[in-house]
């Protein structure tokens, strides 16, 4: 120890060369750039793998609303009531016309509906036990595209 209390140095303190030994200065950016690139690539990959999600809003009407009640002063709510079920391994729907039709036809007919008619219309979807959830969502999506209010029984 020196008289001032600081440790003695064996070599004289060299003035720091900001250019270093090889003409560079500042922190080494290479590791940071590596890490940032990897993070970027993985976020991009994760987004692709997982896929973008969003959601459809649906009403869950109470059971008592199933019967369209009206009195002499109010008009019944315009409603398209669809009942999906599985017939011969395909999903069909009853409620558009006298006969049950395939779900593709249902979606097609909803898409062809006049906007004035469909907007604000309540699309109520019911389904039997075996109907896959994807079929319900497909009909819901078609109704949503036509600005219908969708309810699931």
């Amino acid at each position: 120890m020196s008289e001032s209390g600081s440790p003695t140095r064996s070599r004289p303190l060299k003035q720091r060369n900001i250019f270093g030994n090889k003409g560079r200065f500042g922190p080494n950016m290479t590791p940071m750039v590596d890490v940032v690139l990897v993070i970027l690539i993985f976020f991009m990959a994760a987004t692709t793998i997982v896929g973008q999600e969003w959601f459809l809003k649906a009403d869950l009407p109470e059971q008592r609303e199933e019967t369209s009640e009206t009195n002499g002063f109010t008009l019944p709510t315009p409603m398209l009531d669809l009942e999906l079920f599985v017939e011969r391994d395909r999903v069909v729907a009853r409620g558009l016309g006298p006969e049950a039709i395939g779900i593709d036809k249902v979606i097609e007919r909803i898409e062809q509906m006049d906007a004035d008619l469909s907007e604000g219309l309540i699309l109520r979807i019911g389904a039997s036990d075996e109907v896959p959830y994807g079929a319900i969502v497909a009909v819901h999506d078609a109704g949503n595209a036509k600005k219908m209010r969708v309810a699931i029984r």
Partner: protein
Amino acid sequence: MMRRRSILNDEGTSSRVNVTPMIDVVMVLIVFYLLVGQLATDRRARIALPSSATGIEETQRTDPIIIGVTIDGTRSLNGDAIELDRLEAQVSGMLARSPGTPVRVRADKDTPHRFVRPVFNVLRDMGVGKIELVTEQRP
């Protein structure tokens, strides 16, 4: 006598390979594989979401209540498996703590409706009149 090999070269600088960047990159790779694997397992392997051309993107800050239904009828609440008879108590507790929390249903596209309907019925009985059905954006 054989001299021990010096790690310093004639110029006094280290001749060893600098492994620090490699360790950085490898660590980041491991962490991201874990994260992506977890996400992929939760969202992809167990639940294949239906796709939709319309929908609403996430804008709200409040964490929603997420009820999952797999193809075999296994139900989960915010990622944890739950039986149907406990679902009502749990969800109503959550809604009591933070009213207005959105309730989302994440069901597999091939799940038969007999597994999803009871969830809807439970929510309906609780007075949840509006739900959100999670779908994948159709490109």
